[in-house]
C-alpha cells in the first residue's frame, strides 16, 4: 500500500472515529427524535388505516415477511403510544438512551407497514438509519434533562469533546452521503451514462406524473420547457452523485444541503411525493448546531440562554 493510501486511510480513521462535541450528538438526538415524533403524530390515521388492510393485499418486504398480515389495530395503537411517548422523552433527554432504544423498534414496526404494500418506501429510510447510527451512543450527555439532573446532583458535566461523541454523528453523515451517491449511481448505471439527464427522461417523467395526478401545473411547466427540464435533471443528478464531497470539504454543506432541500421540495411540488422526513434528516445531520446556538444565544433574553451552557 502506498504512503499516500496509508495516510489517507489514517486520516479517514481519525475523522470517522475521532473526538466530537457532545452537543452536536445531542442535537442529532433532539432533531431526529423530533422528526420521528412529527412523522408518527401526523400520520396516526394512516397507520390505523394500514392496520385495516385486507389480508389479500398484504405484500410484505424485509422483516415484515415474518407476519402474514398487517399488525392488528390494537398492536398499532400500542406501538404508536409507546413510540410517541418514548420519542418525546428521548428528544427531551429524559432517560434518553432507554427511550430511544424503545422508540426505534416501535417505529420500525410502524414504518415497516408502509413497505407491506408491494413497494419499497424510501421516505423514512434515512431517518431510521440515522436513528440506528446514534441509538447506542451517549447522546444524553448534553442538552438533556439527564445532564441537567446530573449537574444538580453535583456530577461533573460531559467534556467539551470526547471519542464517545464523534462516531455517531459521522456515521449518520456517511449514511446520508452514501444514500444520495448510490441513488445517483443507479441513475447513471440505469441509463448507461448520463442519459438520465441528457435524454428526454425528465420530461417524460413529469408528463407521466402530471397525468397520474390528473394534472400538475408545475410538472407540466417544467416538462414543456426543454432546457429547464434538462437543467433540473442535471442539477438533481449532480446533487446526488457529488453529495459525499461534504464529508471532505465541510464548506460544501452550504451548497449541497440547500440543493438537497430544493431536490425534495421540487419532488413534492411536481410528483407530490413526500420526502420531508429525509429533507429534515439531512438538515439535522449536517448543520453544526453548537455553532448555531453560539450565534443565537447571545441574541436571546438572558433567561432563555439554557443551551448556551456547556455542555
Amino acid at each position: 500500500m502506498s504512503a499516500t493510501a496509508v495516510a489517507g486511510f489514517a486520516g479517514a480513521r481519525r475523522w470517522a472515529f475521532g473526538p466530537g462535541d457532545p452537543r452536536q450528538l445531542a442535537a442529532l438526538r433532539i432533531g431526529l427524535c423530533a422528526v420521528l415524533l412529527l412523522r408518527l403524530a401526523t400520520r396516526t390515521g394512516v397507520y390505523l388505516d394500514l392496520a385495516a388492510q385486507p389480508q389479500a393485499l398484504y405484500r410484505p418486504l424485509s422483516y415484515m415477511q415474518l407476519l402474514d398480515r398487517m399488525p392488528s389495530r390494537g398492536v398499532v395503537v400500542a406501538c404508536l403510544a409507546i413510540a410517541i411517548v418514548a420519542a418525546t422523552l428521548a428528544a427531551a433527554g429524559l432517560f434518553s438512551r432507554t427511550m430511544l432504544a424503545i422508540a426505534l423498534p416501535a417505529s420500525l414496526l410502524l414504518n415497516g407497514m408502509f413497505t407491506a404494500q408491494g413497494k419499497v418506501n424510501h421516505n423514512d429510510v434515512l431517518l431510521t438509519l440515522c436513528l440506528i447510527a446514534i441509538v447506542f451512543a451517549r447522546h444524553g450527555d448534553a442538552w438533556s434533562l439527564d445532564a441537567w439532573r446530573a449537574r444538580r446532583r453535583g456530577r461533573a458535566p460531559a467534556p467539551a469533546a470526547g471519542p464517545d461523541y464523534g462516531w455517531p454523528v459521522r456515521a449518520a453523515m456517511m449514511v446520508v452521503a452514501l444514500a444520495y451517491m448510490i441513488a445517483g449511481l443507479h441513475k447513471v448505471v440505469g441509463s448507461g451514462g448520463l442519459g438520465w439527464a441528457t435524454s428526454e427522461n425528465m420530461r417524460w417523467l413529469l408528463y407521466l406524473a402530471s397525468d397520474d395526478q390528473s394534472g400538475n401545473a408545475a410538472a407540466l411547466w417544467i416538462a414543456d420547457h426543454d432546457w429547464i427540464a434538462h437543467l433540473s435533471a442535471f442539477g438533481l443528478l449532480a446533487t446526488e452523485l457529488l453529495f459525499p464531497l461534504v464529508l471532505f470539504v465541510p464548506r460544501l454543506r452550504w451548497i449541497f444541503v440547500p440543493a438537497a432541500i430544493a431536490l425534495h421540495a421540487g419532488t413534492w411540488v411536481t410528483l407530490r411525493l413526500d420526502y420531508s422526513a429525509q429533507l429534515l434528516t439531512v438538515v439535522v445531520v449536517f448543520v453544526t448546531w453548537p455553532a448555531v446556538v453560539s450565534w443565537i444565544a447571545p441574541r436571546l433574553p438572558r433567561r432563555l440562554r439554557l443551551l448556551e451552557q456547556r455542555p
Partner: protein
Amino acid sequence: MRDAGSRAALQSGRMSLAPRPARLFVIALVAAVAVCGALSIEAWPLTGWRLFSRERHQLASGWAATSVDAQGRQTPIPFDSFPASSSRFVNVMSGFARLSPAEREATCQTWARLVRERGGDTTGGLRLYSTIRDLREHIGRSQPVEPVRTLRWACADGRGARRAEPAPAGARP
C-alpha cells in the same frame, strides 16, 4: 469537518479514537448501507436506493382496472377513493401474474368488495388492463394522454381471475 474538540486534540498530539465496539458498529452499518445500495438489496430500512433510476421513454406503460355491471358497461375503479392501505393498485399488479390462482382470486374479490362498498356494480366482474401512453402526445397540450389498453385479466366474481386472450393491438377503450 473537524469540530473544535477534535481540532484541539489533534493540535496537542493526543487523539483518542472511539472504542473498538463503536468502530465495528459504524463499519458494519456503513458497509450494510453500501452493499444493499450497490447490489439493490431490499431489506428495509436498508434499501437499494433505486429512486426513478430507470430512464423513462416516450412510451409509458401502466395498469388500469374497470368494474363491469350487469349490462356489460365498464367503469374505471376509483382506487384513489379506497383506503390508503388498499389503493396501491399498480404495485399489486406488478406482481399479479406471479400470484397463485387463489391469491389472484382473493385480490380481485377484495377490490370488488371495495368497489361495491362505494356504490359500484361488479356483477360482470373486474377487468384488468395493461396500458401504454405515448407521452409525445403531451407536448404542447396539458390534457392527460389517453392510454391504449390491452386486456390482461378478467376477474369474475367467485370464479377466479382468468388470463385474457391476446387482444388486437391498439384497441382503444
